[in-house]
């Protein structure tokens, strides 16, 4: 799919970068382009991707210390007074600790506060289960008016940051400090709310977000060799979900797998399941993610394997849904 401007994951050496670098580039670009942007951080500038911004635009930066709840409330005030606000803290601190403030102040008021979850997913690695945020997408998705975006790589993270500034209501964007493969380029189209088909295929579809987009593309390649033609969709926007593309994939390929670096409860898999269950054609689905449990200590790439979040796991899930689809077809006959 040349028109998507994707990196060819088959030969070139795949470069890696942390998505929080893309966040930082996006913030700097916004300020340079004249957006009235204010960036807040809660004593994490060293790792969240705001330290360069702080250096370049000290007047647009506020480190609030370990006051996550106060930060998000203050962000609401700044937004009410016309600022375009980006608040930054660990995924679960934003999504968890400050959830009621996000709900009752920001979402209820429909304010332009963009909430940036740093070091989300398993990226916190060695820090282990209490710090890794696997539930952030699920809890943010339940909030009325909230947009939820999980960028696939640093390039997309930059685009998502810039897009968030233009969306009038709140946006939750998930970033991480672990290096992950870069699969998109500046040419790759990105629109919040529109999932993108990265590979065509007719036998099954994988809808992935975050680092799992790369793993899904790899899985699809290997399944090709087995004669299975798999569609791969980058479903970076979990909310609002691109129902049209999900329904089309269900009708045209009849078997779906979702893949995310997060809980199997209520995330991308949950969103797609809700859509499918109410669509015209019930479709076999498998949710690849972390099964309703906390993370644990380990290196990021070790943890992805440990929790079953690799191309191999996705391929196994695809074979399984594909066989269920065949089974269903036989029953119909």
């Amino acid at each position, binding site marked *: 799919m040349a028109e998507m401007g994707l990196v060819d994951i088959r030969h070139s050496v795949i470069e890696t970068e942390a998505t929080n670098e893309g966040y930082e580039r996006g913030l700097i670009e916004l300020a340079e382009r004249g957006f009235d942007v204010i960036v807040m951080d809660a004593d994490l500038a060293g790792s969240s991707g705001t330290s360069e911004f702080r250096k370049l635009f000290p007047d647009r930066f506020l480190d609030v210390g370990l006051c996550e709840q106060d930060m998000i409330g203050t962000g609401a005030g700044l937004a009410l007074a016309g600022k375009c606000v980006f608040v930054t803290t660990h995924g679960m601190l934003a999504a968890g600790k400050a959830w009621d403030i996000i709900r009752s102040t920001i979402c209820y008021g429909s304010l332009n506060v963009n909430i940036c979850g740093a070091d989300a997913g398993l990226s916190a690695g060695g820090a*282990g289960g*209490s710090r890794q945020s696997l539930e952030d997408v699920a809890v943010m998705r339940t909030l009325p008016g909230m947009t939820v975006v999980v960028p696939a790589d640093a390039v997309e993270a930059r685009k998502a940051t810039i897009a968030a500034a233009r969306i009038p209501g709140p946006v939750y964007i998930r970033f991480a400090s672990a290096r992950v493969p870069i699969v998109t380029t500046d040419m790759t189209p990105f629109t919040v709310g529109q999932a993108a088909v990265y590979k065509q295929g007719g036998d099954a579809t994988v809808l992935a977000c975050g680092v799992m987009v790369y793993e899904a593309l790899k899985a699809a390649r290997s399944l090709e060799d087995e004669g299975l033609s798999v569609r791969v969709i980058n479903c970076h926007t979990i909310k609002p979900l691109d129902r049209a593309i999900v329904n089309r994939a269900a009708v045209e390929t009849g078997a779906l797998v979702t893949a995310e670096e997060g809980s199997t409860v209520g995330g991308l898999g949950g969103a797609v399941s809700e859509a499918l269950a109410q669509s015209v054609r019930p479709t076999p689905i498998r949710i690849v993610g972390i099964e309703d449990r906390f993370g644990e*200590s380990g290196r990021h790439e070790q943890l992805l394997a440990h929790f079953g979040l690799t191309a191999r796991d996705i391929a196994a899930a695809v074979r399984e849904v594909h066989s269920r689809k065949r089974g269903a077809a036989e029953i119909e006959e």
Partner: protein
Amino acid sequence: MSPTPIELKDISKIVRRDVLTMVLEAGSGHLGGSLSAVDLMVALYWDVMRIRPDHPVWEDRDRFVLSKAHAAPALYAVLARRGYYDVKDLLTFRKLKSRLQGFPDMHTTIGIDASVGSPGQGLSIANGIAMAARMDGRQFRVYCLIGDGEAHEGQIWEAAMTAAHHNLDNVCAIIDRNMMMGDGSTEDIVALSPLEDKWRTFNWHVIEVDGHDFERLGSAFSEAASVKGRPTLIHARTVKGKGVPFMEGKPEWHDRKLTEELYEEAMRALG
């Protein structure tokens, strides 16, 4: 018989060496805030707390809640050296399937009284344990170690009110007042001073002490145990990165990665 201040100093040195080795081996971890808190935890575990390392779940033991949970390396080394588990286990810190998770987990590590991780939550836990002790007529005390940056968290101040309101004199909180947090000085980021006075106005008994002086720490903890009707805060002035000159007072050593060379240099400095 309790150890002398000189003996405690020697133990601290061993614990600091363990902390450096663990963080080097793990490839990540919080050095500055672990090193600043070593002496406080050594005082507690060797001199102050009534515990039985051979019976870690003894019901009448004093409890310890590490609210500044990122100092886990220091607590793990203290527990190992105090005999709760094998010192060799320290080398598994932060590794896949290790019992020593990045942040303390009471279900995997022997001797941990409460699982902790997210800053700001420990004092409430300590209060709850202390209330239960009182309900059950038990005499044990509850110690809770809080970072100064951590004291930004609103929940700390909710808990401070709760402990004072309920006259929890079996609670003793310790602030590791190293004046630093992750991004820099607490006073530059969001000033805490005068921190002692804040606790006083919250009706706590406050004791100020040099957090690296075992003799003073010993008397402070005794005084705390004798206070009736009020919780005590030990305001321990400490140095972030204590014991390793190139880390002392340097916020970047909050969680910077340790190289082999710097590890050697740090071990030499510790002696």
